């Protein structure tokens, strides 16, 4: 693994200890342990209906665990933190259609009391980070799905989050847009030295992106395998995906999921 991340990343480490979540009698997550070191790229994959979104809601502090805990930088997570930026699955629902792109990105900073000029400048910079400097004055619904998801990413970045938490972020995009966004997120991780956690059902995507793939079982979700992906820090849609090691990792993960 790329050990240099640990020393240069600004992110706090995340530690999940014995996390369980149930809705009434229904167990969704069972005694889950994992950790995300600063600068790590971790993908969580599992069969559909495995409670991935529930897990993400627990990791983001939106939902309390039934038992166990999530620690961020040593502190137990009890509510959403400024350290964590969330990118939701449904970008159409998570961007405010009455706000222009710039305002959507700057809105969380308004909540923090950042003066208007300053937050707009920061939003502009983050829009540039995701390649959308020219879309500042458009409304989200004037943008394509891929661009909307870029706005959602820019919003999480503007918020100053060092841990990017993404729920099936590219699930509803076409293949080409999806590849572009995957590489964008890899690039952001490298440039901004953030940690990224992606919850996905897409095995290829998980292996392509991650330093570590956490494989969940079906309900109740437990970790059945953790795969350290040794494909180097630089990934390439064609070369990485034709590397024999890529197939090895992919088959190992798939073996768990299909079982």
């Amino acid at each position, binding site marked *: 693994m790329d050990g240099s991340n640990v020393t240069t990343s600004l992110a706090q480490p995340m530690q999940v200890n014995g996390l369980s979540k149930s809705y009434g009698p229904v167990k969704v997550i069972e005694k889950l342990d994992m950790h995300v070191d600063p600068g790590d790229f971790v993908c969580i994959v599992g069969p559909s209906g495995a409670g991935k979104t529930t897990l993400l*809601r627990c990791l*983001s*502090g*939106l939902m309390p665990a039934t038992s166990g805990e999530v620690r961020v930088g040593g502190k137990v997570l009890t*509510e*959403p*933190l*400024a350290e*964590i*930026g*969330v990118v*939701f699955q*449904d970008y159409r*629902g*998570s961007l*405010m*259609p*009455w*706000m222009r792109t710039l305002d959507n990105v700057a*809105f*969380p900073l*308004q*909540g*923090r009391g950042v003066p208007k000029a300053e937050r707009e400048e920061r939003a502009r910079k983050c829009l540039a980070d995701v390649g959308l400097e020219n879309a500042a004055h458009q*409304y989200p*619904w*004037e943008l394509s799905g891929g661009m909307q998801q870029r706005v959602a990413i820019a*919003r999480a970045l503007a*918020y100053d989050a060092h841990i990017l938490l993404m729920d099936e972020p590219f699930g509803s995009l076409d293949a080409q847009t999806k590849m572009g966004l995957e590489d964008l997120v890899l690039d952001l991780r490298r440039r901004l030295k953030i940690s990224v956690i992606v919850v996905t059902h897409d095995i290829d995507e998980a292996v392509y992106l991650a330093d570590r793939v956490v494989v969940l079982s079906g309900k109740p979700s437990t970790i059945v395998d953790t795969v350290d992906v040794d494909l180097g820090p630089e990934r390439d849609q064609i070369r990485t995906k034709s590397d024999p090691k890529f197939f090895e990792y992919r088959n190992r993960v798939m073996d768990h999921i299909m079982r």
Partner: protein
Amino acid sequence: MAKSPHKAALRAHAFRGFLMAWWLPVLAVVAWYVLSDSSTSFYFPPLSKILAVLWRDLTDGPLLGYMFVSLSNMAVGLALAILIGVGTGLYIGDHAKVRQAAMPMLNFLRSVPPAAIVPIVIIALGIGAAPKIFIIAFTCLWPILLNTIDGVRGMPEELSDTARAFRIPRGLTYRRVLLMASLPQIMAGIRVAIAVALVLMVISEFFGASAGLGFYINENKQRFAMVETWAGTILIGVLGYVLSAVFLQIERVTLRWYFREAGAQTG
């Protein structure tokens, strides 16, 4: 190059729309004017006479002042209803437990026919503007309040999750998320409320009033001054039309994002 023929086509289209919307009302007024011109019926005086009296009482009579009295009652009542309805509606919509406790009572209060409370309110609040404003506000409150509650409840969960995940403070969440997300429903509620307010504005002036459009109609009716009664009625009809047309424009501007978003998703 291709732009100006396109514009011309748009203008022609708009003109056709205008004709389609207006030919029937214009025809009806003209027919009324012509057909009633020789009328000798006491109850259906000629439109020409009605309009003449309307003009006389507007320019040289009490009608303009009455209109001001009535409209200001309506404006104050409606404003109160919007303020209270939207404020409490956002709160109730956002709190499931409060909603459970409050809904049965709200549904009861909403189903009290507004005209039925007029006598009680006038006895309780006396004559003057207060009871009229109260009646208008009370009646307008329900469509606005209930629509606001529905609007908040219909908001996508991702939006409230987003507000929470980004630690947006409560006040700001109410103002820029809940309020905006339910604005289409709120505006629909206000549209209903305006129609209701107009009715209550008139009815509330039938009792214990000494000014206002309702008073004007009612008083002339009691004097069997049919032409004046007709004049007042027509004025209120026109007023209602103008108010709803103005509101439609306000709605178009404030909800531009909403209509255009809907258009972007279907088209």
